[in-house]
């Protein structure tokens, strides 16, 4: 199997994730797209790890685990924020959240 297969797949997922982040209006969906991006990263990590022999594979896996935990933490806090937005504005439409307008 070509290592590029996995990397290209990772790239595809990454780009879809980016599109999702940029195009979606609903906060929760944006968070989901971020999950997509993180998964793309994970694929790359594991694929490249297994490319260079066992200890690199292990390293790749360990880092994937760390990415997963960080993703979990991120989702936790992200959803809390989305909930707060919802509670204050009764909608999760990100376009409305533009207090930082210049």
């Amino acid at each position, binding site marked *: 199997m070509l290592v590029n297969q996995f990397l290209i797949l990772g790239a595809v997922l990454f780009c879809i994730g*980016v599109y999702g*982040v*940029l*195009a*979606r209006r609903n906060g929760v969906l*944006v968070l989901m797209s971020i999950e997509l991006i993180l998964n793309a990263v994970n694929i790359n990590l594991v694929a490249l790890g297994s490319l260079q022999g066992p200890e690199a594979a292990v390293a790749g896996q360990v880092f994937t685990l760390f990415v997963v935990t960080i993703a979990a933490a991120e989702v936790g806090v992200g959803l809390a924020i989305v909930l707060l937005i919802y509670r204050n504005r009764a909608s999760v439409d*990100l*376009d409305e*959240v*533009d*207090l*930082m*307008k*210049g």
Partner: protein
Amino acid sequence: MLESIWVIPAVTFASFWLILFFGKRLPKHGAEIGIAALGIAFVLSCVAVVEWNARPADEVVEAGHETGALEEGHGGAEVDDEGHALGEVQTLALESAVEAEGGEGEHEAEPIRSAVERNLTWFSFGGVDVTVGTAVDGLTVVLLFTVALISLLVHVFSTNYMHGDVRFTYFFAALSLFTTGMLLLVVSSSLLQALFGWELMALCSFMLIGHWWEKKPNSDAAMKAFLTTRTGDIGLLVGIVIMFFAAGQTFDIAAINEAALSGAMAETALVAGAAALFIGVIGKSAQFPLHTWLPDAMAGPTPVSALIHAATMVVAGVYLVARLYGVFWEAFDIGAGGVNPIALIGGITILIAAALAFVQTDIKKVLAYSTVSQLGYMVMALGVGAWTAAIFHLFTHAFFKGLLFLGAGSVSHAVHSFEMKDDMGGLRKFMPVTYTTFMIGSLALAGLFPFAGFWSKDEILLGAAENGYRLFEVVGIVGAFMTAAYMTRCVYLTFFGRYRGHGHPHESPPAITVPLIVLAVFSVGAGFLNFPGFERFFELTENRVFLLAGVEHHSFEVFPAVVSSAVVLAGLAFGGMLFFARHLPRGVTARSGAARAGYSFLVNKYYLDHLYTGVVIGSIKGGIARAAYWINQKVIDGVVNGVGIASKRTGSWVYRHIDQQVVDGAVNGAGFGAEGFGGILRTIQTGRVQQYGALLFGASAVLALTLVIFI
């Protein structure tokens, strides 16, 4: 003990702090601490004397004549100058060199004791290590002994004398501090450290003279003493600085002496330095021009006068000259005989002080003037090259002058006054111990045969004669005559005749009489130290400067001794005739204008005070003050105001032109520019996170692309 000589000043310094803090709470209000400290100091100095005495004469110095170039570089003999150099370092190299040349030259190479030095580098700047430390040799040991003894006795004396004083503890603290200062000066190896001791003493003398500062005259006297000595000290400071540079940037006394003697110093620097130092000495030891402060200093309590103005502080100047004798030897060319400034000043001081002593009615004033004249003797002795005689006289003078002052103190304690004419007379019957000790003291002062004064004064005269200073020998003799005279007057007025005071005087308590007795014993015994055959004192104090400079010490000769004692007897007879035998020519001053003029001249102390206060200070005050004021008003104010006006005018101009147009323009311009540019950027800040994301990813993609393509 010699290495750790610094313990002695440390003990007294410690006692100063202890008294200061705990004095008040102790049963004797701090006196016991003072006495204990001084006791320890005294014991230690005795140990030092014994140790110094037992020291082997290990250092051989080839004393080439001062003009001859010294073969061996003085480095060899020089004490190794890093820190704790132990004096008795065997300078083997030196000895071998000497044997080699067969030691010709005037003085055969005699081994003498080398000074025990112990230095620490205090601080260093500009590559110069300023050391602080102790150097002990014969001179130091003698002085340590005298100062410690006198100070101890004064302490014992003042526990009773000052009893009930409102600032009793404060007095003892000051005394301890003063003794620390003197001891520090004596043991110090570098001029800078000596300066510390010097200034500490000045401070303490000011404090002690002005002890009862409630009364105006006392505080004036303290101020006068302080200022006069300060004028002298300016000279001292200048001298030290000159010496520092002349001797190759070092404060170390031994080094300076060496430099002076070895001719390494430039001639002019040497002379200027010596002169400046001598001015300091004049101020401190109350020599001719600056002696006026000493009689007024009698305003302080008597133990103070006894300790400071008889035995220790005033002697500091003499000690300094003795310590830096190499410098003065070379500068004033003492060896060459004739006249030199030191001897001249010494001689003048002897005469004028002795003359003034005649007309005093206050017993302490008499003794003060006698001290001035005796100091004159010492300075004159140094001036004529009689180094050992001067130190010996200093040694003996400390005892009998201390005795006289304490005696005066005891008398005044009994009659509660110092005025001889009004309140004393006939105290012989009431105060036998004081009377006998006072008699011993005055006879020793006069220089009668068995007493200490005779030996030391006689040696000075001998020295003057031998070294070719005939003139000063005569002055010495006349001085001795006058001294004997005014002492008899003083004795007569206090102890003989009818008791003129009111109240009933009684013998002082043992705390006062015991010191008197001790001092009396010393006044008698001290003289024999330099007994012709014995000459222990000479060996003790002999030091390297002699050999280098070619200082001789002439042992006792009978003829001059007979002459001098004859003169003394004549003086006593004259005094006795005048007073005891009542042939007083009554109304002499009334009758002859000249006598009256002379008398009033003397009474007014040669109008010197008027001279100083009126002329010197007055003129200074007047003229200088006005000049300063004028300068201040015109010049300085003018300048300041001018600057003010100028700056205001330029300020406004700058404001109008530069600030408004140029600076503001730039600032506002920048502001507008930023705002304009900002405006463009603002459109990007839409507040919508996703648009930021888009920008981010787009930019990173472009970047990645360029990176890949070009690299």
